């Protein structure tokens, strides 16, 4: 495996100021705002922390996959890679891993602010489980981003990813606690990966964690979106424009 490719993919994400602004700084800002406004109940700071960690992680993963893959396709970098001895699965895997890696700072940053500013306290075991579960739980979004990146062009991919991000965040109960969502949203909510990603964190932080339902839903999304991503990726592309069209 070409680890340097994964390393460069991650370096690129970290150097992108939009990544830091939207995936790391924005969730922290929202956390501080919401926790100050609605911080009355005993569980509010920790529940909001989980919601905002999910909110940041989802965008970290989507933004480092979808728009970037679409951009690289348009620039011709992916064609260049095909002319080099880099197996297709390595390109694909590097994208997924870099997407997942970019989620970790987003999760950790919100947790750190929650501990320092709002005094959130969990056992070391809970912290490890919460961060680990939420990190791995972003897998369906990495598959979604890869699928979008190979399916549509660069401009559209940013809009599509941002649109899906906003809708799944709102309906999935990341901004408003699921219990306070409108009835129609609540029926869909539990089937969304955004809701289930946060649910992992809420369960770990709660008194009697029940993780399997969320893991099941997230795994199903990962497999389904992974298949779509693979199909989008394998559409044949390298063919010079035929003579008649020039």
């Amino acid at each position, binding site marked *: 495996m070409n680890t340097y490719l994964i390393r460069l993919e991650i*370096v690129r994400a970290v150097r992108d100021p939009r990544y830091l602004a939207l995936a790391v700084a924005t969730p922290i800002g929202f956390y501080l705002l919401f926790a100050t406004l609605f911080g009355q109940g005993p569980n509010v700071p920790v529940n909001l922390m989980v919601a905002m960690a999910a909110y940041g992680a989802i965008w970290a993963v989507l933004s480092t996959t979808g728009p970037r893959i679409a951009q690289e396709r348009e*620039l*011709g*970098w992916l*064609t260049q890679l095909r*002319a*080099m001895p880099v197996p297709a699965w390595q390109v694909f895997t590097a994208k997924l891993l870099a997407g997942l890696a970019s989620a970790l700072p987003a999760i950790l940053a919100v947790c750190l602010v929650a501990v320092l500013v709002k005094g959130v306290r969990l056992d070391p075991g809970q912290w490890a489980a919460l961060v680990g579960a939420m990190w791995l739980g972003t897998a369906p979004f990495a598959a979604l981003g890869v699928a979008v990146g190979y399916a549509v062009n660069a401009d559209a991919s940013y809009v599509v990813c941002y649109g899906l991000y906003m809708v799944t965040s709102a309906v999935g109960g990341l901004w408003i606690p699921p219990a306070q969502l409108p009835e129609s949203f609540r029926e869909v909510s539990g089937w969304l990966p955004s809701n289930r990603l946060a649910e992992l964190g809420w369960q770990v932080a709660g008194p009697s964690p029940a993780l399997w339902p969320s893991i099941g839903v997230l795994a199903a999304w990962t497999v389904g979106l992974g298949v779509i991503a693979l199909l989008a990726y394998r559409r044949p592309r390298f*063919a010079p424009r035929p*003579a008649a069209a020039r």
Partner: protein
Amino acid sequence: MSISVCVASKSYGAVRAVQQVSLEVRRGETVALLGHNGAGKSTTIGMLLGLIAPDAGRVLVCGREPGAAVAEGRIAAMLQDTGMMPAVRVGELVELAGRCYPAPLPTARALDLAGLSPLAGRRVDRLSGGQAQRLRFAVAIVSDPDVLVLDEPTRALDVKARVEFWQAMRAYAATGRSVLFATHYLDEVDENAGRVVVMAGGRVVAAGTPAEIRRMAGGGTVVFTVSGPHGDDTGLAGLPGVTGVSVDGERVTLRTADCDATVRALAAGAVPDWRDLRVSPASLDESFLMLTREAEA
């Protein structure tokens, strides 16, 4: 044999991109692939790199299937319409490319050969056109390939960037590597290629040294001076081989498809009292146009 293409064909639906193309590049040779857009150059190059599978025929690179030759780093290419990973530095990208191959050049050496050493720390998306093209060159040669393939490497470059590019290319070819480059700039062929393969309409229509290609197309111009007013253009136009006549005072210029026949007719007395005879072969431009026009007709 560095490259051996044996009666290869490839069609896209009804469009026959490449038809029964045969082409060989020997070790250490620099060969130009010359043709208009749509002549089949890029398809031929795609087949050499295993990006395009021929419908028929056989393609070997260093005696291997193209895919294996690419994996072993024996062939590397600068393709048209390929971009580079944005937002990383020049040195990082060349390092990445090198790590894809079993026996790469040191990154610093590849940057140096491409004249990019001072730009190693610059971001890839902040290079000028000529610099970006030399980065593509560095990414290709970092694999230390036996065969280097360049698809219209100087397209859209200004004169200075073109000169710098060919300097880098010649320095690499001088280390004993084989180079195949596609182009439609004829001056580049004369200066850089030992042999030319002319393609038109998906076929190879001529192959040889630049001088041989000129000879193959035949023709040229015959210029001489006559004493006194000549006035009789019609007689000149009727000489063997002549395709065009222009008279400027005493100076007569004949464009001919067959210099030998025209000169023999002059020597036999077809025109009285001529002197200052000059015969020049067709330029490579004219030969190329003649050869491709014949093929496309």
